[in-house]
């Protein structure tokens, strides 16, 4: 893919004296991780397709501070938070959407007391609202009838009780949605949270992502759906470890919707 997608920035909007309806918070993974960048693009295509008036912060965006906070570095977290809040407040941002549950949780729950009060939505919630408003059509397309299992990201599910939005979207794809033995509030972590993504695991007899991939494989899925760039990486690695990457794809909910429509 080498075509350039038009992605307006907040700075451009401001230069025109406009404010977009919603800020798309891309996040570090969505900006830099090769796999996650594909999710970002798929989501932007959906936004364009639904004629959503949105912008990104671009080079003015910086890590929310989530991994620093979970690692115990409250200082670094708050430095990041205060800096980001200054930028967002200067642009008078009211509504934020992000495809990363870690950014979502931090922006939604931990920024308000530091002066950053926004309506924050996970991209699956946002897509669901577009669907409800009739701005987005989700139809079976190429995934019709496929067996799909959804892995609940901890920071979307347990942490914020969002279980239905991603499932509602998948159901609309006319897929066969199968649940793992541990799902929703009992969902097992992929192993990336709490800053584990950035370090080697402690000694044990198994990696967490392998344990979780086994849960997913038990459902004999064609596709493992995820709603988090880090879960996506962990599950992709797990599937490779089990040498199933030729038969089972790990895809974000946004990618599934975009690909179903051949966007």
């Amino acid at each position: 893919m080498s075509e350039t997608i038009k992605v307006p920035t907040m700075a451009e909007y401001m230069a025109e004296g406009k404010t977009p309806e919603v800020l798309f918070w891309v996040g570090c993974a969505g900006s830099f991780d090769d796999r996650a960048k594909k999710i970002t693009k798929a989501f932007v295509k959906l936004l364009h397709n639904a004629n959503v008036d949105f912008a990104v912060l671009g080079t003015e965006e910086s890590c929310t501070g989530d991994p620093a906070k979970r690692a115990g570095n409250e200082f670094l977290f708050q430095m990041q938070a205060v800096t980001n809040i200054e930028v967002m407040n200067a642009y008078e941002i009211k509504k934020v959407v992000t495809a990363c549950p870690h950014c979502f949780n931090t922006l939604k729950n931990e920024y308000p007391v530091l002066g950053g009060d926004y309506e924050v939505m996970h991209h699956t919630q946002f897509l669901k609202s577009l669907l409800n408003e009739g701005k987005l059509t989700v139809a079976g397309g190429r995934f019709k009838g496929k067996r799909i299992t959804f892995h609940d990201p901890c920071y979307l599910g347990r942490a914020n009780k969002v279980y239905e939005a991603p499932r509602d979207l998948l159901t609309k794809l006319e897929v066969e949605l199968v649940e793992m033995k541990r799902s929703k509030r009992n969902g097992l972590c992929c192993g990336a949270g709490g800053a584990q993504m950035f370090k080697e695991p402690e000694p044990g007899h198994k990696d967490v992502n392998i344990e979780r991939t086994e849960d997913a494989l038990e459902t004999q899925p064609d596709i493992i759906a995820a709603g988090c760039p880090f879960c996506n990486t962990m599950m992709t690695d797990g599937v490779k470890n089990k040498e199933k990457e030729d038969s089972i794809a790990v895809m974000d909910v946004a990618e599934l919707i975009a690909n179903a429509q051949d966007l």
Partner: protein
Amino acid sequence: MQYIPNILFVIALVAGIGYFTMNIRKIIRNIRLGKDVDRSDNKRERFKNMAMIALGQSKMVRRPIAGILHVIVYLGFIIINIEVLEIIIDGIFGTHRIFAFLGGFYDFLIASFEILALLVLVSVILFWIRRNVINIRRFKTLKGWPKNDGNIILYFEVVLMALFLTMNAADLQLQELGADHYVKAGAYPVSQFIAPLFDGMTQGSLIILERTAWWLHILGILIFLNYLYFSKHLHILLAFPNTYYGALKPQGEFDNLEAVTNEVKLMMDPNADPFAAPTTEVEEEPEKFGASDVMDLNWAQLLNAYTCTECGRCTSECPANQTGKKLSPRKIMMDTRDRLKEVGDNIDKNGSFVDDGKQLLNDYITTEELWACTSCNACVEACPVSINPLSIIIDMRRYLVMEQSAAPTDLNNMMSNIENNGAPWPFNQMDRLNWNKE
């Protein structure tokens, strides 16, 4: 002379309740060693949580087998305590079955107590089998005192219920013999099957049997009450305040340390004078970031520790524990309580806390355990009484990182990347929008 039993009873009652009260005051004092945290908001929601989670056992029944057995024992505990009220009144005034005047309702009450007692007996035996025979990992991993403690409580229950039924069976025999003092009252759906065992006993032996069972039953209850303090079993009382004071915010929201906020604001304030003299005359000791010992935790976390009954649902849901890492959220809570008890004993001995060269970190909880956590909240979700082991893990990580700079190297790299270029990986912030050109 005829008042000797009454006097002995009052002495036992006062001693039993008095010693228990003394120990409860110690627990309250120990919990107050924690830092302050405001949990006085949203009283309505808090009462609702207490009603649903503690009184209503809503999270217990998520695991149906253990949950239903627990509900039976819990109902038995609460309802059979109405009988204890009668026993206490009888004991003080030398009456017998003082509530017998309730007639049909009394029959109903006694019958319910008996059926519950039988159900409790069966449940407790099944609990014992779960703990000792069936291979259930969360019980199998308990060794030494915690394992014995769990069993002792079950034995207590068996003995108390057996005494209660024996007492009623002997009473029933005496009622039928028309013995003085033994009014005809109550219905005995369970002990009527035990009563025939005592056929042919003299009235005198029956009275001795009935009195012995009666006394051992009430003394057993007083001993059990006082055993609570020394065991893991305080949840029968503390589950109520603990669910009331449990955090109401989304599980994903970690508190923002206020001490840090003040410093960050000062750093970001362009008008702040970097060379300003401290505003207070006396140099205050700067607040410690995070927790290395129990006094650095807040009182709600310490209440959590006393409330934990070591059921292990947290640990059995923990992804780190399931994959063989050392971390066990149950151990985090047990360690916190053990250390808090140690600190409490230290205060009892010395009047105030004297440094014992130990702390929660390293002496109880190792850094390897702390760094294995994925902060996934599975333990928090699993706890039937709203305990939050994760908040203690995070507070201890905060101490390691902010006071000791003792994070694993990989995490230090991640954090310096965030500091330098606003992302956990070494990518330039100026390249943040390049994804749309690829």
